């Protein structure tokens, strides 16, 4: 019924979708799985019209279609239930359900609220939600909001002749177990009205709900299996699986860390809903990797070490001193350096040049009575440009104009030149090409050899395994398992995925 043929999508520097074939039949539930960055979200965006493919065809009932925007896709019966909920919380439930489609209730320029309420009630009945459509959305629980979103998408049924395809993006991530079961039962019943595409990190759920499963990796569909003969292990191998070249991650350069020198430690630290009861020690020369899915608490832990988040309980110790004031300033003073995922937002200031960025965290060291010693700053920048072979015409070049890999080197140089010896790396190789990634791996090993403790959130599982001395697997903010990763005795991808999902 709905079909993608050889759909391609490219972004600057990334081939996000490579010749994707995808189809869904009437009343079918199709699962879509893959690691972060495998191309799931891009594919979804192409399907519901937020992106236009660069190549290939989209057909509905064998008729080619092309959507300029999500609204056009909706007119053909394709609706999206968003992971980050798209309801406007200060509107009523019915206003949300008919947002943008109020015209049907308007007479002489005035909205007939009664008619809208009645229509909204009919929609809510489809998802078996018995609430007053006049309620303010903010008062609903998350599970209820999810159902309202579904009801909103189901209004397409009346507006569109033809079949519905509804995308569910991680619909279970905020739901309790019973709520998940309710949702699944509902989705199965609704297959009389629509087909569903179900995206989730949780493999067991995908297997339970779907009729067929598409497995994605690196922008390609690597396998399509029917739920009947699906096997969790096989799918997980497909999801993560290429053979990993040990040289690539510089495993041969991995030296044992100094177990006697603890640089940072967490003792039963908790922060709201983000993570609970986390304990670990980071030793000099150690690469400690936090592994988990998006939202498992990895980033929040890094940001706590740096001082951007303040935990509710437990104690954080940096170099033998318990941290009392959680500010970035105190983190920097303690020798913590943060290489954030959003390189261009938090990592460096676009519009400032190389030496200005390198000394941004340590201007005091390059000034007398508040006046900067520009000559020394420039000298420092030239030294580090040589040391890390940063490709830039000079230290005066605007950092916003450097390539991703060179920007990352500038960020690392900022911290290393200031003597930071606790380095937090959040997706340090995101968006870099292979050569630049290898440079980053070399730098990680060089820092370890210098006795720097590194807390890493890796871009892929292979990277996590290849680089780490120690891996801590997190799920829903709690530690699941701790792996030692001595060279030659590293855990496999499967070992990790098993604890993640």
């Amino acid at each position, binding site marked *: 019924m709905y079909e993608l043929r050889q759909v391609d999508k490219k972004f600057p520097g990334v081939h996000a979708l490579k010749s994707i074939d995808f189809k869904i039949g009437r009343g079918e539930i199709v699962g879509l799985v893959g690691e972060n960055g495998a191309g799931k979200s891009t594919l979804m965006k192409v399907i519901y019209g937020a992106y236009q493919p660069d190549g290939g065809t989209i057909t509905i009932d064998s008729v080619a279609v092309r959507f300029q925007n999500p609204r056009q896709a909706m007119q053909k019966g394709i609706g999206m239930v968003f992971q980050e909920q798209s309801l406007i919380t200060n509107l009523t439930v019915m206003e949300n359900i008919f947002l943008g489609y109020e015209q049907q209730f308007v007479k002489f320029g005035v909205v007939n609220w009664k008619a809208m309420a009645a229509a909204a009630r009919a929609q809510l009945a489809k998802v078996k939600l018995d609430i007053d459509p006049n309620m303010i959305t903010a008062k609903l629980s998350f599970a209820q909001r999810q159902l309202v979103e579904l009801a909103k998408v189901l209004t397409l049924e009346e507006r569109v002749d033809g079949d519905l395809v509804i995308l569910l993006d991680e619909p279970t991530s905020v739901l309790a177990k019973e709520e998940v079961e309710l949702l699944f039962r509902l989705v199965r019943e609704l297959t009389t009205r629509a087909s569903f595409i179900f995206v989730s990190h949780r493999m067991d759920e995908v297997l339970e709900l779907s009729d067929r499963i598409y497995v994605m990796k690196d922008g390609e569909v690597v396998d399509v299996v029917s739920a009947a003969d699906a096997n969790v292990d096989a799918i997980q191998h497909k999801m993560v699986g290429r053979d990993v070249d040990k040289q690539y991650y510089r495993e041969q350069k991995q030296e044992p860390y100094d177990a006697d020198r603890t640089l940072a430690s967490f003792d039963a630290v908790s922060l709201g809903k983000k993570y609970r009861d986390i304990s670990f020690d980071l030793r000099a020369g150690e690469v400690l990797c936090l592994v988990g899915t998006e939202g498992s608490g990895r980033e929040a832990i890094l940001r706590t070490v*740096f001082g*951007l988040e303040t935990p509710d309980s437990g104690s954080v110790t940096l170099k033998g001193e318990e941290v009392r004031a959680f500010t*970035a*300033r105190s*983190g*920097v*003073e303690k020798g913590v350096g*943060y290489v*954030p995922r*959003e390189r261009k*937002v*938090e*990592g*460096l*200031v*676009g*519009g*400032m040049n190389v030496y*200005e960025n390198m000394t*941004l*965290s340590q*201007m*005091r060291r390059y*000034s007398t009575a*508040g*006046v*900067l010693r*520009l000559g020394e700053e420039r000298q420092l920048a030239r030294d580090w440009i040589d040391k890390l072979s940063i490709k830039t015409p000079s230290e005066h070049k605007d950092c916003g104009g450097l390539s991703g890999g060179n920007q990352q080197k500038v960020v690392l140089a*900022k911290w290393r030149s200031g003597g930071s010896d606790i380095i937090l790396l959040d997706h340090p190789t995101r968006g870099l090409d292979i050569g630049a990634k290898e440079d980053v791996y070399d730098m990680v090993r060089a820092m370890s050899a210098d006795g720097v403790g590194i807390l890493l959130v890796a871009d892929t599982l292979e990277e996590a395994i290849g680089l780490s001395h120690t891996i801590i697997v997190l799920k829903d903010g709690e530690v699941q398992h701790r792996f030692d990763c001595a060279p030659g005795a590293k855990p496999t991808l499967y070992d990790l995925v098993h604890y993640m999902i």
Partner: protein
Amino acid sequence: MTLERLKPHLPWITLLALVLVVGIGDSNFLKPQNLIAMAADIVPLFIMALGMTFAIYIGGIDLSAQSVANMTTVIATVALPLFGPFTALLCIVAGLALGGVSGYVTTRLLVPSFISTLAIGGIAYSIGQYLSGQRALYMDAAMRDGYFGWMVGSSFGIPHELFIGAVLVIAAYFVQSRTVFGRSLKAVGAGEPAAVASGINVARIKIMAFAISGALAAIAGLLFSVKLSGGSPTIANGFLLPAIVAVLVGGTPLTGGVGGVINTLIGTLIVAVIRSSMLYFEVDATRQQMVFGLVLIIAIAMTIDRSKLRVVK
């Protein structure tokens, strides 16, 4: 050459073009005496705009500048018989304090600067009215000449206001380009999250920027009251719009991070030329603000960095 490449050079090209147009139209315009008089006349506005530059450079704005200047004219006139030369210090401290409060409200209470400075401006305006009893006050001529006469005299045919303006712009340029504070200002304006993540105390930098803006507005007010030998809570009215125009046509966008005090110098000169050309083309004084309003909109539309704006409200 594309528009993007041309943009940084637009301010001085505009200035040059305007000077040529007006110079061809009015042969007296380009005479040195006229140019010097015009420049001296614009100095109080320039000082106010210089302060405004700091607020806009970090991505904020200071709508209290005009009211602070108004208030300062009154304070200067009232305080002169009591404090003599220390009146100047009092004025500057008052401006620093009010600017500091604006900064505090903006950074700690998280009130956007356009509203916090508007409110502080209301307070300053009211202080001026209260202290003056809503009348125009006059300075004692002998005391004024004794303590502050140097501000408005002239040497070698050059009015002293120009020296004051020059000293301030050099000092401001030094702060902007050579100090830790100036570098921090740039970082906050160009990329606040990265500045935070580098351990810079962003709140303090912002408070200082607003305090400097207040202090320079106060210096502008002091110069007004010395020039006019008196004070009144409405004396500087009509200066806010041209001051903002001066910063923006100079090439410091409302989103901050680029431009700076030299741009404001050029921007102020553009404003000065526009003003004198309005005299030449006999645009009525009551209609001048219309022109500045239009220029402001054009300048903002041309300079603002839309990638930094998520939503425009």
